[in-house]
């Protein structure tokens, strides 16, 4: 047992004792692992609420004349659904949840650089969630997650609560970005050069840069909207000399990079899972690592592709269109590298692997329709329709959420020390995959045939496909129950997990499950990339638990 010595012989001895009282240990914890799990618990609660809101949308759209809820309620429901899924679920789960729990372990650190800041970042989330969901009490925002003025200036009082909630999330996200950037740059184990970092860490690095820079634009835009709504300061209302397009530029300057904040960590998760379950190195490590940074950089220069119909000088659409097309290059490199990784592998179809393969398939489709939307002339037809709804659900559900579930199944044994039921998990994958495609694939066609977004009623001709989509969404909702059943099963009856149940080689698997307080009593040195299966582990020193090469893998 490590005991803090009065004078530290070397840095290995600098370990503070673990807090013993419940509140310090589990509530206001400074431990990145506990904070990560706190993120997971809160975001999964938000995921369920926002998911139920989505089901309200799908029930309403079962019939062309709606009728399940009033127009006002419908508008509030989809607005809060979108806002919550983006800001309260996907972003915090991928950065706050996985970033916090996994990233410091992967780089051989004992915690993040600023644990107090980390705790502060987390505690903004429950507050933001309470603000956003309580807006239903006073009239929730109605103008969608984008809240374009001037209509958002007319919105119900809850729109101001929305501003405050998203502002808080933005502050939290910025602070987490700074925290992770410093952690990754300064706290890697000796010998872990940048090009020996696991790919998930690369993804978190690119994401941290994006969150840190882009979120400030959103904060400014939100503050202005709040001031205009509350005190009548005319930023956006054209009848008072404001500009509605100012909001759109500010909003998308954040919200397009935010798409990459939501997808890059999921790419990172896949890039860890594929080597593990093919038992070979990821193809083209450097290409995959640098393409994350490439996507992040180009991602800052494409925001106005959301505004091709909003009104700008015609020639200005061209650079935005072409730069957007070029995002497809680093993204394509990633997808092709993942596929090349499968070649010659020893592939085990665990649930984590299935969700990763599912991500590659569905995200690719979302990426392809992204190119359709980026082409200005085609976008003149597609903008603002269900085609867009289909596209971004393929990216954000088929990409980000599939990545989240892949990561959950992969790191669950590390978080809890228990295994999940693979059988149930595989059933969860297939139900999700089928439900997802049934829900969102028909929407491409609906959009192209003339169904606009954000409508509580629609033309008779669109009913059959809407019913199909709704049935798919019910399957999707039920599939989520399989996941929670698995959580309950694992926590009560799950088998004990070994330190390395999958045969993975990154540092987090070289310590016990769940990891001890302070992770590494002695910090190891890193000699090479972790993915060379068959070679000895590239770690020297430390008090690592080296996996027994003959032990069985979980899920066999």
């Amino acid at each position: 047992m490590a005991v803090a010595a009065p004078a530290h012989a070397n840095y290995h001895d600098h370990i503070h004792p673990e807090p013993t009282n419940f509140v310090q240990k589990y509530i206001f914890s400074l431990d990145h692992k506990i904070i990560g799990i706190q993120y997971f618990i809160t975001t999964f609660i938000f995921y369920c609420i926002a998911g139920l809101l989505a089901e309200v949308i799908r029930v309403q759209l079962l019939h062309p004349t709606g009728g399940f809820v009033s127009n006002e309620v419908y508008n509030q429901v989809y607005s809060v659904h979108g806002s919550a899924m983006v800001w309260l679920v996907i972003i915090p789960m991928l950065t706050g949840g996985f970033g916090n729990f996994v990233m410091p372990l992967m780089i051989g650190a004992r915690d993040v650089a600023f644990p107090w800041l980390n705790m502060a970042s987390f505690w903004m989330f429950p507050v933001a969630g309470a603000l956003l969901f309580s807006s239903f009490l006073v009239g929730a925002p109605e103008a969608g997650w984008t809240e374009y003025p001037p209509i958002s200036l007319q919105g119900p009082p809850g729109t101001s609560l929305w501003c405050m909630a998203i502002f808080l999330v933005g502050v939290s996200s910025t602070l987490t970005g700074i925290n992770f950037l410093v952690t990754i740059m300064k706290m890697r184990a000796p010998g872990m050069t940048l090009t020996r970092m696991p790919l998930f860490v690369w993804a978190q690095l690119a994401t941290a840069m994006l969150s840190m820079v882009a979120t400030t634009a959103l904060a400014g835009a939100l503050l202005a909207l709040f001031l205009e709504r509350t005190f009548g300061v005319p930023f956006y209302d054209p009848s008072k000399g404001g500009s509605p397009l100012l909001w759109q530029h500010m909003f998308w300057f954040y919200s397009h990079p935010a798409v990459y904040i939501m997808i890059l960590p999921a790419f990172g998760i896949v890039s860890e899972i594929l080597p593990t379950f093919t038992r070979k190195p990821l193809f083209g490590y450097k290409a995959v690592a640098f393409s994350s940074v490439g996507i992040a950089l180009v991602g800052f220069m494409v925001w106005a592709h959301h505004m091709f119909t909003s009104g700008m000088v015609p020639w200005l659409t061209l650079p935005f269109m072409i730069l957007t097309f070029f995002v497809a290059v680093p993204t394509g490199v990633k997808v092709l590298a993942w596929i090349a990784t499968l070649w010659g592998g020893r592939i085990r179809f665990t649930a984590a692997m299935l969700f990763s393969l599912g991500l590659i398939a569905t995200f690719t489709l979302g990426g392809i329709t992204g190119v359709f939307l980026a082409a200005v002339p085609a976008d003149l037809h597609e903008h603002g329709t269900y085609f867009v709804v289909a596209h971004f659900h393929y990216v954000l559900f088929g990409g980000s959420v599939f990545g989240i579930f892949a990561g959950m199944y992969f790191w669950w044994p590390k978080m809890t020390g228990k295994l999940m039921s693979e059988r149930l998990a595989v059933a969860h994958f297939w139900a999700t995959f089928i439900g997802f495609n049934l829900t969102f694939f028909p929407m491409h066609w609906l959009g192209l045939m003339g169904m606009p977004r954000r409508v509580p009623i629609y033309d008779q001709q669109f009913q059959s496909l809407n019913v199909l989509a709704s049935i798919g969404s019910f399957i999707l909702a039920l599939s989520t129950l399989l996941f929670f059943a698995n959580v309950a099963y694992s926590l009560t009856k799950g088998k004990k997990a070994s330190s390395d149940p999958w045969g993975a080689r990154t540092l987090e698997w070289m310590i016990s499950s769940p990891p001890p307080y302070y992770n590494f009593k002695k910090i190891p040195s890193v000699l090479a990339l972790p993915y060379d299966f068959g070679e000895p582990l590239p770690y020297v020193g430390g008090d690592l638990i080296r996996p027994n090469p003959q032990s069985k893998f979980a899920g066999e």
Partner: protein
Amino acid sequence: MAKQFAPKKGIGPGFWPVTVLLTALSVAWVVWLGRTDFATFLPEAAVPADQIDSLFKMLAQMGGVVFIFVFGFLIYLSFAYRVRSGDDVHAIGVQMHDAPSLELGFWIVPTIMVCFISWVSVQIWYGLQQSPGNALTVEAVGHQFFYDFRYPTLWKPVSQELHLPLNEPVTVKVTSSDVIHGFWAPEIRLKADMVPGLVNTLRFTPTRPGTYRIVCTEFCGVAHGSMIGKIVIEPKATFKSWLAAQAHAEGPAPVVAAAAPMVANATHPGGGSAAVAPVAQGDATAGKVVFAAHCSSCHSVGGFDEKLVGPGLGHLLNDPAHPALVTGEKASAAAIAHILHTGYTGPIGMMPNQQQNAISEADIANLTAYLVSLSK
């Protein structure tokens, strides 16, 4: 060291047959899509629609091929290299880190595809910029929750129905009187947001007679879902008689000869065509009452800078800033009446038109007299 699994020979079992199969599927997809006429799913009712469909078709062909190969190889490789029952689970895969030529291909192939798509898209974009629109210009104004259309020869807007002559290049200028609306004609494949204080332009040539939808694609409030207008494309003769009937129904414009294009003010503050017509004689005292009821919530009777929502209207005729700034016309009683009829959207804000303000012709005459009297 664990046993390394290796394919039996060369690139592995089934690689070439699968490649051939996926290539065949791709060719079939490209050919089938190439022969498919998108107009059978959704009519192409105007000229750039075919251009836009051809771009969409090209994207769908390329995207489909990419998807066939990605998805095909994903499934094939997953099955070909899966661990079968009885296999040694500790065997490892081929320890390949990269293959420089293949990796270079991963960068080059998408780059070439993207360059090609950019080239085609820019060409079609350039074609759209060249669309003529010189035969007729109609102004479309979005309101919560309907569309108004203004024709050069009518002084009242036509609500909800946009009539257009067949085979005549038209320009539709769109704006809004309140919040952002969308103007989408799916059968024309064109869309522009109707943004208050801003004018967006669409140019096309209707080629197929019929009645089509105009759909609002930007959330605009509680009845957004039912904000649907109509485009009626009809032969030129039918269109002309429709226009004449509209002119007849509304009667002669009582104050101004023809309403200057409202939205022209927004794009070119100096470009509004002058409306010079004798102004009906009004009563300034009655005008004061109308002003208090309909105007005073937004306008003071002070100087131009004494704004409430709009500018102060106290010295319209002798204040150099106003109303020349608004319409580009010399300040006159006729110009005042003109703005009261048409409303205003432009650099200094927006004002509802006569219908929305619910003021009668007599009210306008009286208001004009009152506002002129204030300047004296």
